[in-house]
């Protein structure tokens, strides 16, 4: 903790130091511009060193920044770059694949940029130089059209593959479990239809097992995101979207809403607790035995806009309402008793274990 703090302070100090020294070293000098017939009196001399020093300094800042960030001990906190499951890892690999190409493009453009600026700047020596009246160069233009096409192709193929692959469980020989996720202002409700238990603002999953999160929302759109386990998907009112995630090993992972949903949206955090199979079973049994029952009155109260803490129940709200069915409630977010819907949910293959 202290080490972290010290490196962070050093990071900020270094940035400020480079920045301030740049500003004060820079003496705002430019070339004489003989051929345009105007000149401001306070621009003196023909020193070109000011620019060069300034440019070098900027490059230093730009180049140093990523390294400073790494030094700052940020990597283990950089959730997206710290994948803890096969889904996040697939996305991590794709990201790293693209970063390689992007760095290549940046190096090429920045090099040409620097070389041209240094070589072709107006200098007293080249005062009589007349730039050529060239219209273009077909060969060069074909080259720099073709290379981006190749790069895009090299990125598109793995992107399409991964986009399709993410819709299927990453592990084929393990039976996935299903958890219904309902976003409400401003909390997350997790229902386990197979186990008939429900949690609020935290969710337990077995490690090494694909989890199908079936997402919906009561009210504004939210986005369900656990960066260490994989990318996000929207939770929308009257809709059901599906997001498959999986954790490699037991651990605790931060999740949050990534889509603005109103006043207290920033507090829409939840914890994903991955456990071994046995621990997970143990937890389920414990919940079933000890947690209170959820009734409609209590549920309506939970849905009211505001923040709530963690909660655990030994049944699910899916018994009386599934918000994923279009227009399942009135606009005020109040659930509507609807027996048809209940039956429909049953025939859809959701087991309530009653």
């Amino acid at each position, binding site marked *: 903790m202290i080490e972290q703090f010290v490196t962070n302070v050093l990071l*900020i100090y270094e940035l400020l130091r480079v*920045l301030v020294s*740049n*500003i004060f070293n820079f003496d*705002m000098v430019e070339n004489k*511009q003989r051929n345009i*017939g*105007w000149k*401001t009196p*306070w621009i003196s001399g023909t020193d070109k060193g000011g*620019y060069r020093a300034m440019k070098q300094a900027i490059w230093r800042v*730009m180049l140093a920044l990523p390294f400073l*960030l790494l030094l*700052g001990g940020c990597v283990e*906190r*950089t*959730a*997206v770059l710290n994948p803890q499951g096969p889904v996040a890892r697939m*996305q991590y690999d*794709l990201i790293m694949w*693209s970063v390689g190409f*992007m760095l290549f*493009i*940046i190096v090429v*453009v920045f090099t*040409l*940029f620097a070389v041209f600026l240094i070589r*072709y700047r107006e200098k007293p020596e080249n005062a009589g*130089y007349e*730039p050529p009246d*060239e*219209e*273009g*160069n077909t060969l060069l*233009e074909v080259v720099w059209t073709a290379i*981006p096409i190749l790069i*895009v192709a090299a*990125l*598109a193929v793995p*992107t399409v593959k*991964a*986009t399709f692959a993410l819709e299927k469980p990453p592990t084929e020989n393990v039976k996935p479990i299903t958890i219904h996720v309902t976003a409400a202002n401003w909390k997350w409700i997790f229902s386990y239809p197979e186990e008939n238990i429900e949690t609020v603002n935290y969710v337990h999953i077995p490690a090494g097992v694909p989890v199908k999160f079936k997402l919906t929302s009561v*009210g*504004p759109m939210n986005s369900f995101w656990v*960066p260490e386990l994989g*990318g*996000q*998907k*929207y939770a929308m009112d009257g*809709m059901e*979207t*599906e997001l498959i995630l999986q954790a490699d090993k037991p651990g605790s992972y*931060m999740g*949050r809403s*990534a*889509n603005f*949903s109103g*006043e207290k949206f920033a507090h829409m955090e939840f914890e994903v607790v991955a456990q071994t199979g046995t621990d997970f079973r143990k937890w389920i049994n414990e919940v079933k035995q000890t947690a209170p029952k959820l009734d409609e009155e209590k549920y309506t109260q939970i849905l009211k806009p505001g923040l709530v803490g963690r909660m655990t129940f030994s049944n699910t709200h899916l018994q009386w309402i599934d918000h994923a069915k*279009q*227009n399942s409630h009135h606009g005020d977010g109040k659930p509507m008793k609807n027996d048809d819907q209940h039956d429909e949910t049953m025939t859809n293959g959701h087991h309530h274990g009653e």
Partner: protein
Amino acid sequence: MKWSEFFVTGEPLIYAADVAIVLTIIGIVFVLTYFKKWKWLWNEWLTTVDHKKIGVMYIICAVLMLFRGGVDALLMRAQLTAPNMKFLDAQHYNEIFTTHGTIMILFMAMPFIIGLMNIVVPLQIGARDVAFPYLNALSFWLFFFGAMLFNISFVIGGSPDAGWTAYFPLAGNEFSHGVGNNYYAVALQISGIGTLMTGINFLVTILKMRAPGMTLMRMPMFTWTILITCVLIIFAFPVLTVALALMTFDRLFDTQFFTMANGGMSMLWANLFWIWGHPEVYIVILPAFGIFSEVVSTFAQKRLFGYKAMVGSIVGIAFLSFIVWVHHFFTMGAGPAVNSAFSITTMAIAIPTGVKIFNWLFTLRKGKIRFTTAMLWSLAFIPNFVIGGVTGVMLAMAAADYQYHNSYFLIAHFHYVLIAGTVFACFAGLHYWYPKMFGHILNERLGKWTFWLFMIGFNICFFPMYFLGLMGMTRRMYTYSAGLGWTPLNVVATVGAVLMGIGFIVLCYNIYYSARYGERDMTGDPWNGRTLEWATASPPVHYNFPVTPVVEDVDAYWVMKKKYGGFHVKEEDLKPIHMPSNSGRPFWMSVAFFVAGFGLVFKWFALAIVGALFIVIGLILRSFEDDDGYHIPVDEIKRMERAARKGA
């Protein structure tokens, strides 16, 4: 709506703003009265149909809005500097990021670009004004009163708070009860109508009013980008018009287009918004490309490399911009086939954009580069925009986007393209064409201070945000907890934002300083320019060209200077010039729009009807108006030309 809710109360910042607004109004009224300038204001500015004056008014508004949006940004950065800050509460923060986004895109970037195009395009094509000068004035005043209507929301009634994207159902009556989102719907509608008319106006102007000899493939690159931008406006803005109309119905009359109940479909809003919204970002970036092309070519003292490829790539980008909108919501679960298709179309935009980058680079090659302030902005654009561009390609990869979406990675990306692209271009264009607008040059030394402060501050502010995004920080969070490790990078970002703010202050000081002490431009061509606007005096006489110039090649003025030593006018060639008359009607009709809009916002329908009545009266009066403008006699032209050349 209770009267007690009419004025926003309870926030010291708001009270300070109230006081500032009242004092500013008193100040303006006092100055105008004291110096007896009311008549001048009315005759020279409020009723003008001169494209140059309209352009200047657009830019003044844009700079004011840049200030407003920038203050919003600094307030947000202050709140996010440290975890659990209590500087702003959640509601206030939500309003501020909503107005920041809306104002920066629609009331800062758009008018800045439209202002520059108003001033420059008719001059570049050798025209005396736009095709429909009266309509142009109406466009401006609609934009202006739309912007004013949006801006008063923060002291009267309350600001919108559902994000500049105003996603439903959050922005609907079910979750946003105040008038804030009514302001959003109505104010954007009013200024959007103005923008749509500007698009039509400039499309016709460019297609019909070019000087003899200026074929399409001899047009300056800035004019080309404006032509394509107009096409984008004409196709994209009607979608916004419809979307906002449906939103207005939902909010005011309880229709159910985007609601949760009764078959409403909130995803429809997201689609309509981005079918407009994605072309919209190209509407603000294509003219930027045009500005950079002009500036780079002028100060590399060399013809633009690959002119045809440049034109082709703008057309390509414009076409692609209409078939990529789904990339704004890959995470909506449209399915892998849809996401893959939109991934590929989005990545394809990198190809024409890459072509342009290399063409600019090769314009520099073998050139003789002069580092003026305008050129510095244009040069800085290249590396900064490339960083924004490559991260854009990363975002375009649907499977990876699930990890970037709505995070600070996205925030960093679009600020890198919009600031390094559009804002740098606006500053480049401002410094470059400033002598053409006002007859004096912006001080170069102060200009370079602005540049370095703003450019370095920009990188310090937004580069760390890529990492904040990868660390899991999402956009629109008003606070975060201490244990997340986001604090140092947020501190760094705030430092950068402050530097950008200082850069802006230096710019404003420069405008004042140069007005008092700046060097007058007597030649009309201070930069050794290449296009026709530099063939006129600085500032040009209101009819622009005493005789219409004849164009022989791309870079028309450059060729004239090489072949004939400049643009010479023989007095015997002068003919009377036909010019449009001023009119006060665009101004008061737009006031009527404002009144009607204000009535709609508060559901005071009687007021709305009164406003609408005046709009109809204005339309009727215009329809039966018999004013063909006036002719300037030859003697008058001679007198004005001599005065202009002597240096007014």
